[in-house]
């Protein structure tokens, strides 16, 4: 096959790309790198502009703000990658926590079993979201939009809108969200586990393939419906986990905890961290850095005495800017101007 040795090649990339292009290439391929730089920039900025930024109490504020968002964001990343979204994750966060409460308080289940029941209630919501979206064909945006109201209504009816004390003894609290940084350890565990799932397993690869080329993936025999439903279940279950952990940390359960605000933070973190809303690409670690960016902004503004409205304003700009950046970058990548080898 000597003739075939002169195989077709892509247009030769410039062999000695300028440093600028190579750096740009590295950023294009490792989208987390650029958001990491933004994070460091913010930390430097706030530590110069405020006196108290590096206080131990602040580290804890950032950690506690970040942990539940990061857990939910990890699930949203999986869904966004396979081309779907779950708008109801913040409401699962409330709903499943109440199920956990009733399982322990009203049905008298042992506390660990109650946690499992709570998590399963989240999984069940994921199954409904997934089946309605994938098998009935309602866009996930609509399915999960409806689910927001459904769950919110259900939670208010169940709870009577009165807050309750989180059930459980001291050993349980020690391992499940009570005490300093426990939720953070859980969040780190989720980030590591989900990173392995996305980058090192068939499930993760098939999730990327499903979002990257739905028809091609199914022609290759990937069960794209199973992948999608599975990721809906994963996202809802993680939202339930975040809700129960937080309820233990703050020792009470509210009917209106979480909600769309929390979900939007999680989706925003994922998008800022480089996950494409069009599906096919994204990383857990990027979303985790995105969460930290939100947390540092939140804390920094608080320390500077800037109010919450400004935080929303900056968050809005950050989302639009990072999405615009993503889309532009994709266009540059398609035109093949960045280096080829990783």
């Amino acid at each position, binding site marked *: *096959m*000597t*003739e*075939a*040795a*002169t*195989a*077709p*090649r*892509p247009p030769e990339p410039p062999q000695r790309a300028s440093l600028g292009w190579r750096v740009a290439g590295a950023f294009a391929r490792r989208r987390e790198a650029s958001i990491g730089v933004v994070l460091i920039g913010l930390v430097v900025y706030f530590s110069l502009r405020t006196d108290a930024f590096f206080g131990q109490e602040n580290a804890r504020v950032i950690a506690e703000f970040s942990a539940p968002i990061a857990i939910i964001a990890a699930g949203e990343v999986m869904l966004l990658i396979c081309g779907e979204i779950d708008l109801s994750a913040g409401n699962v966060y409330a709903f499943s926590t109440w199920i956990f409460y009733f399982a322990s308080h009203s049905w008298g289940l042992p506390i660990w079993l109650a946690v499992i029941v709570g998590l399963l209630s989240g999984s069940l919501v994921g199954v409904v979201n997934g089946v309605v979206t994938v098998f009935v064909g309602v866009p996930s945006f609509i399915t999960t939009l409806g689910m927001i109201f459904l769950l919110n209504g259900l939670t208010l009816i169940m709870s009577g809108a009165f807050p309750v004390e989180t059930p459980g003894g001291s050993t349980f609290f020690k391992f499940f969200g009570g005490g300093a940084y426990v939720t953070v350890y859980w969040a780190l565990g989720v980030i590591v586990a989900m990173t*392995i799932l996305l980058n*090192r*397993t*068939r499930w993760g*690869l*098939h999730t*990327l*393939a499903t979002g*990257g*080329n739905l*028809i*091609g*993936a*199914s*022609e*290759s*025999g*990937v069960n794209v419906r199973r992948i999608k439903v599975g990721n809906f279940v994963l996202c809802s279950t993680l939202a339930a986990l975040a809700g129960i952990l937080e309820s233990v940390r703050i020792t009470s359960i509210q009917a209106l905890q979480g909600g769309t605000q929390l979900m939007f933070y999680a989706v925003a973190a994922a998008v800022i961290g480089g996950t494409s809303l069009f599906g*096919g*690409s994204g990383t857990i670690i990027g979303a985790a850095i995105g969460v930290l960016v939100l947390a540092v902004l939140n804390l920094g503004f608080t320390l500077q005495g800037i109010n919450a409205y400004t935080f929303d304003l900056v968050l809005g700009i950050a989302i639009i800017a990072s999405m615009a950046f993503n889309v532009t970058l994709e266009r540059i*990548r*398609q035109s*093949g101007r960045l280096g*080829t*080898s*990783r």
Partner: protein
Amino acid sequence: MSELAVQPDDRTPRAEPDAIRVENIRKSFGVVTALEDVSLNLRPGEVLGLIGDNGAGKSTLIKILTGFHKPDSGRMFVHGEEVQLKSVTHARSLGIDTVFQDLALVPGLSVYHNMFLNREITRGVGPLRFLNNRAMRNRSREYLEAIGVRIQSMDAEVARMSGGQRQAIAIARTTHSNATIILLDEPLAAMGAREGALIIELITELKKRGDVSMIVIAHNYVHVFEMCDRVNLLRNGRIVFDKPTNETSVAELTSIVAEEYRVRNTQAG
């Protein structure tokens, strides 16, 4: 097995059953009937060319043979055994593999992840299994080198590959999948002359191996005569012409198709 290739016109019954035989396949999508009544056979070691107009049902037929669509009625035999394909994975387990027209590649994934999509090499214990990227990367390089395709990096995204490289990746992953029956849906579409020559050479090399049977959909009759032992013409959901390539010619095929056009236009007019 090479005598099969040089005597494709041997019509005497032989002990070895057809690699694929379908009888009276019918398939419609809503009110549109894609396949009226298709019967077709693929002999072991043979390269069968499938030609026909756009919309004649070629891709639908391929997708039925590969388990992607299910026929409304009709029977299918693989190596003499009747089967009802449940999925692409089921077809693959019977040794049927396909290079789809869209190649079924994921642009954002690396060359080696595409090569091993849904047949990943993993390592681990029990259900706890992880991708063995190193093994997949190395084997992808071997496979592509074996067919003479140079790709700079196995880690590069397929989005960066040329049409010919993509086709080569799609074919290479099929030929290294233990497939004995390979279906190629327009492997030469949207390809330059040089890239097209590479693909024809790949198919010819594959045929020399003797242990695979292939159905190739093509538009260019010259390519059909270069690659195929036999040619079938699909029209309006039926096979209307079936001859070994050495008993027919580009001229005959062209005149048949031209005749159809004339008849159709007359009817329409």
